[in-house]
């Protein structure tokens, strides 16, 4: 699939797992960008156009929710699906992420099926 994906997570291991699971689920974009926190992600988004963002919430320097708000404020990813991938999954947290601009929410641990059900439809739409 043509396009660029941005994976934001402070764990390099988790970024690899997310990318591997996306690939297994048939969601493979030809360019991959990785960021270890919200600040790095913002820098990458200011210089690149992406088609999908997979983002953790609990990160140093700038959390996933703060990143979503900055993306919205700076209009850095208009219409781009942003999916939160996080251990935190309570209803208020999901609501907060959706209000800040997330289109999907996947709780860790996750399976290929979770990615298929929550990410694939966003790319087709």
């Amino acid at each position, binding site marked *: 699939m043509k396009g660029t994906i941005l994976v934001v997570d*402070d*764990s*390099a*291991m*988790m970024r*690899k*797992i997310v990318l*591997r699971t996306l690939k297994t689920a048939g969601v493979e974009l030809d360019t991959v960008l990785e960021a270890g926190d919200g600040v790095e992600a913002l820098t990458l988004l200011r210089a690149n156009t992406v088609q999908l963002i997979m983002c953790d919430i*609990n990160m*140093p320097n700038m959390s996933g929710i703060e990143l979503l708000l900055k993306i919205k404020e700076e209009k850095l990813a208009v219409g781009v699906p942003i999916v939160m991938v996080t*251990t*935190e*999954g*309570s*209803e*208020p*947290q999901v609501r907060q992420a959706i209000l800040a601009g997330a289109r999907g929410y996947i*709780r*860790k*641990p*996750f*399976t290929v099926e979770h990615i298929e059900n929550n990410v694939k439809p966003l790319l087709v739409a």
Partner: protein
Amino acid sequence: MSESMFAVKSYGAQEFLSAENGVRADEAVAEVFSMMLGYEILPVDEAAANGCEANERTAIVGFSGSMRGTCEIRMTTLAACSVASAMLGGTPVAEGDDSIDDAIGELCNMLAGGWKNRIHTLSSDCALSPPTVISGGDYKVHVRQPSMKLARVYRFDVHTLHLTLHRQDLAT
């Protein structure tokens, strides 16, 4: 700021020590190992498990909010290599690889989250700290008193995983 903003319902000692909590821990461990590592993992008798070993790794994640405490996992470096390798889809991982600490830190994070998300009062009112990883076995984790713990031991493949949940009294 209003006073009500600080009114967090504490997760009680009785609830923490209930039998259900052991079951929740077992479920969280089984779920994470099955979904992220492809391993079957089973609880074993603590007395039958190996004791502390010199060459080991420990990951700790803190709880704050309606419960203050920690989630601690401990395993040998060899077991941690297996965890990292399984997380990478079977790619071999050598003992000195940086990804080992990252892997068991993430594992601890998912186990802590998986356990607390099974408890309604903790799911939304208890936050997790970033994981800390310790290499080596010659250390002691000090938790401020009064505290209580729930310890479980599991077996996966040929390895042992020690899980300890500490709950600290909010009033201290």
